[in-house]
């Protein structure tokens, strides 16, 4: 007898099998895409919680799977991101990828494995099942990262120590949890973990926390993420960027909210009560918003810029969840969904530009708006979402987080998020300006719009972003299920937004007003006196002087030169140096150990050991 969850997992496994078995078939994307859509339909119709019959008992541990609202929320995003990526891969982009000598089979296969692994992770009902999913996800995303050339492989290899460190920290946490509580089942853990002593709890939270935050890219462990995600093959990057790192958030939220509980977390005090663990995590999240965002500002490669933003946006989500009231947690969770839509769209649009022009270097693009208007539209909508402005959905989730921070009385954290948003706006403007605005380069004169196979997934994604921005009530249903599953207070909502005693938000009104304003402006512009005139892009003057075609009016080098002059010295690369130091310390140690194994007279060691051991025994 199969349950709906069994069926879902079976479909995911069938996708993997299909991707590898039929991977050479030209139109494989249609098949896997259809499978993803089927999974999506199953997911939306899933009864909560839905258990699986798959499972086994090993060494006294029951390992089983059961999906609740929290897991389903992430699962929907996962499968959706995979579907979009597959559609993107199916057409001209995939053809080019194949011609470059890469294996499309493995790309489809890796994507399908990722989805299966993540579903297993999200549906885990005990820590072993969670760890199985966790490890599978780690190595599946390694597989996805490593494809697409030498640089991708090297970036992926850099990910290995982080991934393994994360896995081992989690495994250490699991065995300690078992030693402390005697169980690994989620339901029993939720009862027993809060009763542990403080030091035990602190140890557990540290181990699990370090493990999960590595995957999520929280602050001291974020270095691997940007290169690994940015260098991957295009569709892979969009999937990885949209959801992969959020698995860390999922597990972290499960641990902090469901098992340890936020109130218990606040009992763990540091520095004689000045700081508690909850504050600490909130501040880590806040710094994760600010620092990577400003690192993104410095990037000159569009892919890296977006990848760094991905790290920063994770901070908002964690911050919202750690605040833990109905508004904040809803904001944090909703942000996962919202971010996935516009981030995937943005990455795909960057790769569309890359596909047509052959570069993602922000210093060698410009003026593409006339050549690729649809892509421009996607990127415009995307950055509006990323910056958190209406009418896109990013506004709603960020608004909820801000609001919760203010209600809960955390002005300093609020300040941090505002600084982060400022950095976001600055850097996304750099992105769209350097790519689409300004003057078209001569070599890009013949560029055409991206093919439909690429534009349609992008448009669908921003379309979802817009619709859920106008009507956030749609995803908020899923968010409410997730909140309920975690044991958090549920945020009451309407189709257009939220209502609360301290003042609600109705996006239908906001968007209505916005578009009314646009309408009035357009009426004024076109109706009162339209004196605009169309000229060619190169038809420029500066100070009365005619600029010839080889003099660029559009500049992109040293963007924000003044700002960078101010804040430039703050970019010290301390984390990079820390990473280098660890690597070289390891290398030195390894050399020492090798020297140990090249002893001249091993017998001497044996003699010394025997003598020392005997001495120890005799003296005892």
């Amino acid at each position, binding site marked *: 007898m199969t349950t709906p969850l069994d069926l879902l997992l079976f479909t995911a496994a069938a996708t993997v099998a299909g991707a590898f078995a039929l991977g050479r078939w030209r139109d494989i994307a249609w098949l896997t895409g259809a499978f993803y859509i089927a999974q999506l339909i199953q997911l939306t119709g899933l009864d909560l919680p839905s258990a699986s019959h798959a499972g*086994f*008992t*090993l*060494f006294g541990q029951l390992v089983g799977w059961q999906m609740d609202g929290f897991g389903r929320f992430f699962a929907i995003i996962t499968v959706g991101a995979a579907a979009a990526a597959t559609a993107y891969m199916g057409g001209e982009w995939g053809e080019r990828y194949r011609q470059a000598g890469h294996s499309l089979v493995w790309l489809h296969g890796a994507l399908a494995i990722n989805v299966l692994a993540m579903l297993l992770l999200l549906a885990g009902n005990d820590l*072993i099942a969670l*760890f*199985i999913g966790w*490890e*599978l996800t780690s*190595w599946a995303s390694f597989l996805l990262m*490593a494809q697409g*050339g*030498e640089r991708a*492989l*090297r970036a*992926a*290899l850099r990910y*290995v*120590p982080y*991934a*393994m*460190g994360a896995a*081992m*920290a989690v*495994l*250490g946490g*699991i*065995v*300690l949890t*078992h*030693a402390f509580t005697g169980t690994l089942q989620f339901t029993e853990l939720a009862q027993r973990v809060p009763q542990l002593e403080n030091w035990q709890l602190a140890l557990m939270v540290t181990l699990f926390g370090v493990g999960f935050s590595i995957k999520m890219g929280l602050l001291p462990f974020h270095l691997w993420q940007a290169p690994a995600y940015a260098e991957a093959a295009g569709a892979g990057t969009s999937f990885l960027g949209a959801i992969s790192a959020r698995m860390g958030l999922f597990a972290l939220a499960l641990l902090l909210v469901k098992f340890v509980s936020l109130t218990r977390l606040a009992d763990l005090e540091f520095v004689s009560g000045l700081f508690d663990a909850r504050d600490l995590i909130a501040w880590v999240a806040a710094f994760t918003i600010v620092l990577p965002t400003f690192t993104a500002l410095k990037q000159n490669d569009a892919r890296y810029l977006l990848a760094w933003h991905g790290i920063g946006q994770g901070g908002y989500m964690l911050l919202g969840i750690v605040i833990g009231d109905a508004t904040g947690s809803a904001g944090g969770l909703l942000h996962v969904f919202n971010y996935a839509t516009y981030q995937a769209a943005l990455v795909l649009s960057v790769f569309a530009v890359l596909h047509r022009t052959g570069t993602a270097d922000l210093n060698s693009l410009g003026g593409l708006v006339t050549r690729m208007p649809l892509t421009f539209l996607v990127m415009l909508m995307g950055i509006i979402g990323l910056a958190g402005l209406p009418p896109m959905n990013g506004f709603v989730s960020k608004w909820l987080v801000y609001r919760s921070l203010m209600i809960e009385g955390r002005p300093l954290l609020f300040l941090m998020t505002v600084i982060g948003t400022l950095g976001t706006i600055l850097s996304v403007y750099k992105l769209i300006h350097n790519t689409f605005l300004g003057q078209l380069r001569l070599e890009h004169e013949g560029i055409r719009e991206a093919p439909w196979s690429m534009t349609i997934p992008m448009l669908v994604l921003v379309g979802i972003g817009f619709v859920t921005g106008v009507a956030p009530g749609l995803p908020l249903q899923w968010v409410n299920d997730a909140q309920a599953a975690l044991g958090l207070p549920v945020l009451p909502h309407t189709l257009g937004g939220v209502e609360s005693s301290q003042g609600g938000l109705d996006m239908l009104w906001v968007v209505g007003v916005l578009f009314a304003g646009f309408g009035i402006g357009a009426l004024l512009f076109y109706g009162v006196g339209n004196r605009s005139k169309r000229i060619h892009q190169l038809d420029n003057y500066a100070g009365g002087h005619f600029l010839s075609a080889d003099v660029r009016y559009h500049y992109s080098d040293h963007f924000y030169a003044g700002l960078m002059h101010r804040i430039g010295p703050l970019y010290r690369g301390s984390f990079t140096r820390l990473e280098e130091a660890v690597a070289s310390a*390891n*290398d030195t*140690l*390894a*050399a*020492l*150990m*090798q020297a*140990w*194994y*090249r*002893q001249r007279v*091993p*017998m001497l*060691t*044996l003699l010394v*050991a*025997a003598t020392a*051991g*005997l001495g120890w*025994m*005799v003296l*005892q």
Partner: protein
Amino acid sequence: MIALTVALPLLAAFLLPLLPALARQFLGPLVLLAVAAFGLCLAGNALDAPSVVAIGDFRPPLGIVFYADGVAGLFVFAIAVVTLLLWPCATPNGQPDPQITRKHSLTLLMAAASCALALSGDLFNIYVFYELAAVAGYGLAAGSRTPAAQVATFRFTLLGSLGSLLALIGITLIYFRAGSLNLAHLAELAPSTLHDPLGLAGFLLILLGFGVKSELFLVNSWAPEVYATAESRVSALLAGLISKLALLAVVRLLVLVFPVPEASQLLLVLGMLGILTGELAAYRARDFRRLLAWSSIGQLGAAFVAFAIPGPAGLMAGIAVALHHLMVKPALFLLAERWGGNLAQLAGAARNSPIAAALFVLFALSLIGVPPLPGFWAKYLLLSGLAGEPAGLWWLAGLVVLTTTVVEAVYLFRIIGTLYGHQQGSVMQSRTATTGSGIFALLLVGTALSAPLLAAPLQKMATQLADTDGYVAQVISATITAPQRSGTAP
């Protein structure tokens, strides 16, 4: 049947040089198949109750007993199967080897000695068969007949002999103190006689002596030299099989005679250092075979740490770690036989030999403990055993295992990166030597799939191994198959 597992390979080894060429080909494998069958029977029977045989029908404290519990049966089976898979065959360039009969003899002797190590219940008997395994190992290690191998083997021989000497002194101490050699008898006597500095000194000397073969830290510096120079199959036998059996002998002594915290802590500390030094040294290795040697040192350190945990949980973890390593390391050495020692030349090898590369990935994943594979369960049992002990050294050991796993993942994935990388290495010998390795992979995957079924018997075996009282009762009351012979002496 118990004695046959030892007697048959010995008989075959003695007779091998006398047989016609055709029979030589088949005798060894046939005998090993028979031993494998015996091993399965023994393990199966032992799940009901362990069986004991008093060699020569002398009542136990006087004569020597062979004690076949589940672990012993399992190891006998593993010995036969692994030896069969690593059976010496033609030289690397495909020429028939004129020395092949001698190698076959030595391999059979080694298998017999290993079986005896698993079964024997007598301290000095263990020493004798340890020496037999050692001498056969020296011979095989020198069997690649390169000058470097001769020098490495000479150093190995000297170190091993010094170790045996220390072990012999340790046995002397124990015998002098307790007056018996039978492990069951010693287990009875130990609380009153051996749990003092003197007995522990004896244990320490035996540990160091047997530690040479089981790659215990401090006495394992032979391993990188020998594994880099010997034939890969021989390295696989030494690293995969002999080390485990020497370890098993130490464990029997630890469990039966020295269940005291000092002894376990000794094992724990040395094992921990073995993990650290082995894995870190492997991190910088540029030579595939030495890398495997160091990684094997690390893995055996983990096994030592696991066996140091008192009680059935630790033994369970130890058995799991040891069996896992028994499956993975020989397979990796077989790949080394195919690929040679140069890591840099492996660049892009996945294109020429996709199956071998895929096998490498599988073994690497299992080695670092990625969940559905058996390596994960071994690591999980080890860690949860350590976490179950009080904080302090035990948790430190857990931390060491966790951190070195990261190092291990880095160097293994570096090789995977090279294999699947975009540069092209110079030479790839493409021969059909992946079969053996493939069989190991099938075993590994089979274990992964049947893990829930295998867990219960394994747990039972660990309980048996930990059951000192049961051991003593079984051995002391061992039924002599016939009444004492009617001596006609006046």
